[in-house]
């Protein structure tokens, strides 16, 4: 295990050696830290309404000011980070898991199953994200779960296709035939011989997809289709600030700034990961 640790350390050093990678790591850690330690960092309750403190500008007591209900925006932004990051991480992980399994089945299984999967992927892909989201939310009602389902549905076809193509290429590789000739079953071939060789590029792509997921969650919450108020979410804060942007711009800033920072952070990190570990992906963009 110490070897794995030293390899991980080596990879981290290579990422940190890139200025952009360094910036990405710092931003991501900052946002994650903020979300995890939200209760410690922000003294105020995120949902505590105090009508007397409405529309206060940034000050030492309210670092980012207050909104139309007098809630502390710094606290709401940090707690909103929890929602954003947990949606992003959980749904990306779920998309990865489902996409990998479906992709492996499509690539390794019989031809008809492959065609079926491709049809499924294409059918999902053919819906514009927002339309799909609206349809699902109308169906299930606005909730975090609905947001995550939308994200998974949007991501799975892309991940599945990548895994399928690579599995297809490896299916007849000699080391796969060799494993089969020894008596290895389908599960073993996929798990031990194919998966480790196809997962790398996908992890990099997934890290670059996290900001997209954050944007989807914020967008749906902005439209009132995501988390229910009063739960703090960056999209909801943005929406609160949107109506009063001329007089009290700090509300929109409190919702928008973290979105910008986390997007930049994960994008820098993902791009550095890609450049360091898989330069071949660079051109495909």
């Amino acid at each position: 295990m110490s070897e794995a640790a030293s390899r991980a350390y080596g990879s981290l050093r290579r990422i940190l050696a890139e200025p952009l990678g360094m910036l990405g790591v710092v931003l991501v850690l900052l946002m994650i830290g903020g979300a995890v330690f939200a209760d410690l960092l922000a003294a105020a309750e995120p949902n505590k309404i105090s009508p007397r403190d409405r529309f206060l500008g940034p000050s030492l007591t309210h670092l980012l000011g207050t909104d139309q209900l007098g809630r502390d925006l710094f606290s709401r932004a940090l707690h909103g980070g929890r929602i954003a990051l947990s949606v992003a991480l959980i749904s990306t992980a779920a998309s990865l898991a489902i996409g990998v399994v479906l992709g492996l089945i499509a690539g390794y299984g019989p031809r008809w199953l492959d065609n079926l999967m491709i049809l499924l992927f294409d059918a999902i892909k053919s819906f514009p994200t927002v339309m799909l989201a609206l349809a699902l939310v109308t169906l299930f009602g606005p909730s975090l779960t609905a947001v995550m389902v939308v994200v998974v549905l949007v991501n799975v076809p892309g991940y599945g296709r990548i895994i399928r193509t690579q599995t297809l290429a490896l299916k007849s590789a000699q080391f796969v035939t060799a494993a089969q000739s020894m008596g290895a079953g389908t599960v073993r071939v996929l798990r031990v011989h194919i998966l480790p060789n196809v997962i790398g590029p996908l992890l990099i792509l997934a890290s670059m997809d996290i900001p997209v997921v954050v944007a989807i969650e914020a967008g749906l919450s902005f439209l009132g289709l995501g988390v229910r108020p009063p739960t703090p979410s960056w999209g909801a804060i943005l929406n609160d600030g949107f109506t009063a942007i001329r007089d009290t711009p700090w509300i929109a800033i409190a919702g928008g700034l973290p979105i910008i920072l986390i997007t930049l952070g994960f994008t820098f990190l993902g791009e550095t990961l890609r450049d360091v570990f898989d330069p071949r992906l660079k051109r495909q963009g």
Partner: protein
Amino acid sequence: MILTVRDIEVTFRVGPLLNRRSILAVAGVSFDVAPGETFALVGESGSGKTTLANAINGLQDTSRGEVTFMGQRVDNSNPGEMKPLRRHMAMMFQDPVGSLSPRMKVGDLVAEPFRIHGIRINLQEETRRLLSLVGLSGDFADRYPHQLSGGQARRVGVARAIALDPKLIIADEPTAGLDVSVQGEVLNLLNDLRERLGLAMIIITHNLHVVHHVADRMAVMYLGRIVEAGETEGMFRAPAHPYTATLLSANPEPDPDKARNRISLPAEVPSLLARPSGCEFHTRCPWVQDRCAMDPPYTANGEMHRIACHYPLAPGARPPAKDRAL
């Protein structure tokens, strides 16, 4: 007999959906392998050697015939039925590095057969034993395939093949991609292991030196059929089928002073989609006669030596002078 192959055919379907045609890659092949014996399959690329090996191993479905291994039918069997038999039949593939999973360490690669068959032993110890058996130090266990030379990768392949103490090893081009000195080492290793472990081997190759060096019996394949089969020594001394004679005469001779009596063949190898009539070798045979284009040759089914030719050659025969312009 540990392995009996009876009249097997392998058909591939090729071409677009509406113009699907089937080609016969292996066209009725029969042979036996006795325990502890080394049998060589020889032929040009495209003669169906590898397809035949895959069919014996159950990696390729057959369209006719029977393959019996250790008394059990193995052609077209399902993976579950076949699995226990796979312990006794190991395969070595053409590309030494390409047949090793790139993200696995050598130690895990050698331990894989045990894991697949759920055999509980001290894997680390066993891996070391196997590596030393093929002449690699235990340090290799921590290497990845891309850190190995072709010869080292081939040795790892041998270690994997002998791991479960098989009764039969099918080696597809065991010397391909290796330079001559390493080829020799690998062949000696195989010979040595065979004697020590008493296993039977099928060696598939187009390298006749390899055949001469290791095989007890050999079969020559042309367009998916065996055209001549017999004892290696006898066939090298007096090839009876014109194709065998041609192959042997084309074998590069290390001694530059030795007279070269090379027989050259006209024309290309015929396409499997358009098999020639009669004797399928007649389009290229230097000894061709009128009858050859019409009758498929009777397979002389002697006890030890079989020839598919109407006019088997006398020892040392030379092709007739070319009176026909090509």
